[in-house]
């Protein structure tokens, strides 16, 4: 009977479950892309919807409930019943950490076990600053971190690599190899590759952060999960009262086999003195125990070491979190007119303060943007706004009839807009640089900006004017003007302006619908519709 039980390894089931969730995650990630319809057809932000850290922090910072409130309650309930199964069985970043950690053959002699407290301090700091209206959770929330890193760095890198390999084979065509690779390439294009190669300003920086997180697994497997992850800490606190308990029977010979395989550094060999909040329910201790002395079951008894974080350190973390709020806010950026004029937020973004209270930097909007125009900021929105989305028209304009960024935003920092609402939202205003514009400065016809202007009637209009060339020969050109009441700042004029380098027409945030102060026209005249 004992042998029969040993034959069944929980580990294999867990690996299958982890693989399934990772594949689901990747599938939804790849589906976060326009197919030309108005909607995506898949719940692409599903993992974020189940993230209780985002729920709690937005609740604290913005007093608002994230869109799919109910789903993250499921995660909380599961954790209360079963413990940190999310970490051990579901989290796609955890699974990736697991995989990378497997490269390292043996367990290191020295572990950073006492560091397990760090993640709790980070969590406490995060929650404290959220209470005082800051939203820093996204920087280290594992799902935001993962989606952001994939969107901005890993996926563009993957696409670049695959495309350049197949393109090189196609161009050189060694030994007629291209006839074999091209069909493979076309399948990849239809399945896992993006529609077009995307690229992002912070790709290298965000990528380096992500690869550092993965690289830490070579220091110690699941280093991130054990020592740094604030969501793991949050679930750890919840799991302390979980119903599913680990018990060690009398048969335990204290051989220490379990200590070597524990994914959470929970000190399983310490029996009742183990750190239950660190347990990810991987069940490796159960699998490996030669005496089969370990079992998981629902029992009322609670035997574990207390979570000793130290009162001073807890208070210190909380105060640090609180101090971060004025530190980040007392900057000139908050002054009207002092903001970066190029900080163009996606259509439907809330007023800047409210926006920053909600945006968790998950990068979903940047991934889904049809033109690749949404890019992560560095310091355009201050340190507080790092990696939040901004539109860079020269990279990609805002597609007039597209509403996808608002559909994928998990926290409502970008409102979900109906098409008829969206086309009235002003991101900013375009203005012409007459010193660079071809018909204004160089006696050459152009008027591309007017052609592509999507509003109807067009915000860009022109007057036919007689100009003279260098020889004094008169010729007629059409000189463009911007109708400030009609312009929505989508930036297609800037994107398509043939004057490369500094464009002859460009958008700044002045006039953006979401701001009361950042306005140009007399209030009441701005609505062009």
């Amino acid at each position, binding site marked *: 009977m004992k042998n029969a039980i040993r034959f069944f390894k929980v580990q294999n089931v867990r690996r299958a479950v982890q693989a399934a969730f990772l594949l689901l995650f990747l599938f939804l990630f790849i589906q976060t892309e*326009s*197919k*030309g*319809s108005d909607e995506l057809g898949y719940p692409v932000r599903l993992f974020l919807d189940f993230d209780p850290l985002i729920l709690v922090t937005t609740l604290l910072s913005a007093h608002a409930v994230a869109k799919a409130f109910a789903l993250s309650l499921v995660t909380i309930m599961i954790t209360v019943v079963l413990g940190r199964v999310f970490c051990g069985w579901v989290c796609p970043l955890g699974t990736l950490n697991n995989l990378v950690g497997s490269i390292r053959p043996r367990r290191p002699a020295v572990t950073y076990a006492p560091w397990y407290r760090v993640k709790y301090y980070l969590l406490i700091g995060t929650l404290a600053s959220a209470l005082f209206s800051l939203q820093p959770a996204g920087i280290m929330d594992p799902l935001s971190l993962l989606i952001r890193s994939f969107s901005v760095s890993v996926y563009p890198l993957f696409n670049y690599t695959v495309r350049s390999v197949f*393109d090189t084979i*196609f161009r050189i065509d060694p030994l007629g190899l291209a006839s074999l690779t091209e069909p493979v390439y076309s399948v990849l294009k239809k399945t896992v590759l993006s*529609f077009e190669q995307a690229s992002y300003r912070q790709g290298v920086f965000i990528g380096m952060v992500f690869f550092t997180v993965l690289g830490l697994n070579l220091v110690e497997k699941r280093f991130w999960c054990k020592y740094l992850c604030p969501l793991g800490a949050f679930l750890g606190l919840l799991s302390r009262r979980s119903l599913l308990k680990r018990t060690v029977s009398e048969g335990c010979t204290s051989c220490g086999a379990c200590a070597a395989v524990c994914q959470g550094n929970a000190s399983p060999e310490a029996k009742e003195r183990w750190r239950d909040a660190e347990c990810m329910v991987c069940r490796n201790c159960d699998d490996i125990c030669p005496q089969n002395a370990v079992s998981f079951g629902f029992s009322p008894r609670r035997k574990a070491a207390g979570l000793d974080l130290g009162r001073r350190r807890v208070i210190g973390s909380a105060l640090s979190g609180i101090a971060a709020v004025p530190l980040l806010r007392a900057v000139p950026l908050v002054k009207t007119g002092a903001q970066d004029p190029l900080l163009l937020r996606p259509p439907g973004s809330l007023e800047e303060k409210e926006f920053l209270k909600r945006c968790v930097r998950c990068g979903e909007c940047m991934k889904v943007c*049809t*033109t690749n125009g949404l890019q992560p900021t560095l310091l355009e929105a201050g340190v507080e706004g790092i990696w939040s989305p901004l539109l860079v028209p020269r990279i990609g304009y805002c*597609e*007039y*009839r*597209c509403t996808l960024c608002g559909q994928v935003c998990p926290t409502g920092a970008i409102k979900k807009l109906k098409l008829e609402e969206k086309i009235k939202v002003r991101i900013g205003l375009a203005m012409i640089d007459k010193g660079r514009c*071809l018909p204004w400065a160089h006696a*050459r*016809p*152009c*008027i*591309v900006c*007017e*052609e*592509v202007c*999507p*509003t*109807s*009637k*067009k915000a860009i209009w*022109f007057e036919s004017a007689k100009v003279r060339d260098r020889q004094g020969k008169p010729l007629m050109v*059409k000189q463009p003007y911007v109708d400030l009441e009609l312009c929505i700042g989508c930036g297609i004029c800037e994107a*398509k302006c*043939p004057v490369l380098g500094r464009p002859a027409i460009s958008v700044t945030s002045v006039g953006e619908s979401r701001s009361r102060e950042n306005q140009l026209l007399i209030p009441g005249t701005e609505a062009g519709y």
Partner: protein
Amino acid sequence: MDRRHFLKLAALAGAGLSVPGGIGQLAEAAEQASRPDLTVVRGGSPDQLARSAIEAMGGIRKFISRGDIVVIKPNIGWDRTPEQAGNTNPEVVATVVKLCFEAGAKKVKVFDRPVNDPRRCYVQSGIAPAVKALGAEADYMDERKFKDMAINGQALKSWPLYTEIFEADKVINIPIAKHHGLAKLTLSMKNWMGVMGGSRRQIHQKLDESLVDLSMKIKPTLTILDAVRILTANGPQGGSLADVKRLDTLVAGFDPVAIDSYGATLFGMKGSDLGYVALGHRLGLGQMDLSRLVIRKISV
């Protein structure tokens, strides 16, 4: 049939086949005399209009042979729906695809290089779903298939153009008639901007010359100008239904200058009002003087 009769017939048939062109050429000439320069069909569904326009120009089998690879070039330039008249009518395109397959075309490819996001343009225009359902290819244009080609024109010396246009056995141009700020109207000649690669926005600096250059280079088998709905203002993409006028009209022909000259009349203009039409006429690309053309008008 006796032997003598049979030999006589065989000899006749042999002679007929051995003369180059033979009887076929005579028939062709006779038919061409009766074939109009332009056909204007009005007043039916887009499907009926397309069918009768092609029928009046000699029938689809006149243009498409069994096994042909056919390229159909509609205007799919904008993220607009069919009723907004920013792109070619999807039903017209679908009917032409259907007829090509009926005539035995091996492959029908439909494409354009849009100004807006290609995915949205292909889907929202209704063109890609309609033609894919019929078995045609509606692939997005592939960067690799643009090749720098000599044009040696007035404005364009060479430009990257889409190779599939030149590799196809037959090309059918199906533009839509629309208002355009710079060109005044965009009709058949301007539709070839959709096969230009590179930074094509630069050609606005010499638009009339460039459009004539392109039409000198690209010679479609047939052109059908879609005026089921025309866009009278805020073109070329429009957006407001107030600018859309329903004409239920198609203009079919071979001469781009003649087609665009007739197209101008749909907007109350003359061909000579359009710089590229006048220039095309002057350079011998085609005939803009409608009084010198045989125009067949059909009411469906």
